[in-house]
């Protein structure tokens, strides 16, 4: 994947994330009115195809966006080059996806 394709993937994933972040924060503000409980959250998310799709796509976008951004930081800040940098950022992206998808499954299944 060329630098340009990574650039486009990062911009497009940011475009996808922008409305997700707004809805995510909006729901958080709404949800804590009158206290916050696990039962209330699970009541909203469990069995919901909408929240599964919402947070599922959110996790995919975050994994792509963060891995590409950290790849740049690994290059410019940590001085990593070539395959090592690509491999490490791929591991970070897959790790974020694994953690995120596990969480999405836990609250929506």
């Amino acid at each position: 994947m060329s630098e340009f394709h990574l650039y486009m993937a990062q911009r497009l994933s940011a475009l996808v994330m922008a409305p997700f972040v707004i809805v995510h924060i909006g729901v958080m503000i709404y949800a804590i009115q009158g206290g916050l409980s696990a039962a209330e959250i699970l009541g909203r998310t469990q069995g919901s195809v909408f929240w599964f799709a919402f947070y599922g796509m959110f996790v995919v976008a975050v994994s792509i966006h963060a891995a590409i951004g950290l790849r740049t930081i690994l290059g410019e800040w940590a001085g990593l080059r070539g395959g090592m940098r690509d491999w490490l950022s791929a591991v970070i992206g897959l790790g974020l996806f694994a953690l995120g998808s596990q969480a999405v499954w836990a609250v929506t299944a």
Partner: protein
Amino acid sequence: MPERDHLTVTVQRGGPDAPMRPQTFEVPAYDNQTVLDVVSWIQQNADPTLTYRFACRVGMCGSCAMMVNGVPRWTCRTHVSKVLDGNAIEVGPLRNLPVIKDLAADMDPFFDKWVSAEGMHHPTRTRDDAIEAIDPVTMERQEANAGIECINCSVCYSACDTVAGNPDYLGPAALQRAWTLYNDAKDANKDAILDAVSGTGGCHSCHSMGSCTTYCPNELDPLSAILGLKRATTKRFFGGRK
């Protein structure tokens, strides 16, 4: 009469064979004096082995750029009074480039990147054709005009923190050159330019920090040129043509 009769000038000396070390000189102060005058005074009167580079002395050739008190500047057009820190000035070789000796930086990486950014002419006509008439008021021509007064001094390249962190990055001057050619009606290969600036270290590596535009002594705007290249490559990705 000047307020001071002497300046304390610290010059970074050294090169590949000797580590850089500061050397301090007392230089006579004058009312009107550029940083290049100060460096020349040291070379002519205090230490003839001091190495530095200049040619035109009027801000046209781009040879004399150095770090002055930590900031890249064209020294022939920088008055001492503008940069004096108390009574002192520190002069060093340009940042982000190898040092040949003392104040002379090796400009090879800078110029090699102009070529890598496809900063070369791709003609639309042969020498047997009539010269193409150019409309000076088109948007493209205005964009090209905005960047063509670059004197290749490498001040932007030295000011750029992305170059410092990423040695592959082509840098502001090379990318601005690519942008002027991309907008030039007489350039026949826009795709080659966009391909060249889309690879490793291309325009997409820029973090838009804007030091290039801040420090350009000719008050050019390489940052906007780089943003133009980002837009053009994105447009091409979605099937848009120039």
